[in-house]
């Protein structure tokens, strides 16, 4: 299979990228290409122009200061996975990256490309929602910082505008919760998340849940924070959490597919949430104090 014809350009600055986006018809930004190129090979996408971002240094690199982590949009999954600094200050992100695809995919795929493409079964969205990250989007009109809860709008549709480029994903260090884990039930063939849960649970001295963050990918048309369930869990004894209420999952458009019905997938999700909660409690490490 091969894509339809297109023009191809390789800018070296954000300015050149924005120029191309505003002057050319029907273009797509190309990062690692491991979401876009498969679509183009199937002719499900046929942009007239590809703007290859690999030579734009401003999009690359991981930088960490006292307040924030900045991950350049063109940072490959393998870099996130193997960054010792990131493992130290935000292990959830590094470990989530390690679950994406396979080694070859991780050598090419990028965090920005993945999060703009917003596949409903991608892995990063669960971690990103739990970490309450922010997306830095640059356009001719200026710079916008979009919080994760406002990023995913519909299936495979995000808040980025067609004349903008995502430059960074930012995480505020003081909002990184302790013991955050990502558990994934992979599709046996594709490896994508049938259900993926990012969880962080904090307990009080009597092992009651003091704070809960739960983010789910794979189950529904969009990844989501299970806010209602998080509220409901506060106060529950962690070793004896009752059955989840039905209204913990209202308004979620569960994807139905060949291996499992929607109802089975919801059951799987509930099981994965419990496992993730237990894993988070087991994983609790002391807060990093600088």
């Amino acid at each position, binding site marked *: 299979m091969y894509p339809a014809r*297109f023009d*191809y350009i390789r800018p070296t600055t954000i300015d050149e990228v924005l120029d191309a986006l505003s002057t050319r018809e029907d273009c797509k930004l190309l990062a690692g290409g491991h979401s876009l190129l*498969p679509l183009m090979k199937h002719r499900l996408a046929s942009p007239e122009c590809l703007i290859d971002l690999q030579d734009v240094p401003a999009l690359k690199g991981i930088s960490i200061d006292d307040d924030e982590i900045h991950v350049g949009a063109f940072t490959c999954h393998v870099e996130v996975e193997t960054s010792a600094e990131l493992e130290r200050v935000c292990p959830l992100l590094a470990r989530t990256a390690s679950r994406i695809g396979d*080694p*070859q995919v991780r050598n*090419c795929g990028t965090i920005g490309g993945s999060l703009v493409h917003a596949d409903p079964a991608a892995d990063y969205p669960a971690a990103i929602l739990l970490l309450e990250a922010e997306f830095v989007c640059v356009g001719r009109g200026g710079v916008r910082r979009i919080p994760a809860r406002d990023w995913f709008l519909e299936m495979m549709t995000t808040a980025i505008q067609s004349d903008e480029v995502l430059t960074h994903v930012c995480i505020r260090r003081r909002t990184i919760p302790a013991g955050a884990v990502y558990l994934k039930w992979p599709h046996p063939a594709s490896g994508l998340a049938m259900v993926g849960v990012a969880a962080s649970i904090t307990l009080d001295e009597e092992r009651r849940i003091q704070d809960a963050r739960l983010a789910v990918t794979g189950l529904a048309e969009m990844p989501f924070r299970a806010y209602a369930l998080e509220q409901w869990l506060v106060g529950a004894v962690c070793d004896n959490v009752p059955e989840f209420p039905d209204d913990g999952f209202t308004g979620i458009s569960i994807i139905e597919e060949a291996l499992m019905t929607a109802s089975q997938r919801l059951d799987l999700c509930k099981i994965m949430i419990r496992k993730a909660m237990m894993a988070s409690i087991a994983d609790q490490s002391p807060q990093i104090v600088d």
Partner: protein
Amino acid sequence: MEVNGETVSRDVEPRLLLAHFLRDVLGLTGTHVGCDTSQCGACTVIQNGKAVKSCTRLAVQSAGTRITTIEGLEEGGQLHPIQSAFKNFHALQCGFCTPGMVMAVWQLLQRHPVPTLDQTKHGLEGNICRCTGYVNIFKAVDSLGMSNTRGSETL
């Protein structure tokens, strides 16, 4: 682009996949197109030291890089140690997945010179074999680890 140590330069359409560039333009047919959907890894080559699926790269994307294909592994007519291990442990049957598998093993050994079974399984998740059931592949990799640096010293 540098391919197996040689500088090559061609005019190509932007939509030409790296796999097709290697196979059809350069005649290096050791790299195989299996699933063509980024899953099976039969198309795996090494680009700037990293294993990539050449069916999911445009040749123009890889312009300016250093590519090693399966053809680039042998030295002076001698099989590369990974190839020898595959031969000795019968880690191939039909051979279709093998070039990609060998390149993925090359990367695995770069990262883990003496890989555990878990590291081997994890490192080869991007490569599907329909013949061997993987066991002999794991044995071949294990033997390369046991011979310690031999797997990596010539790389």
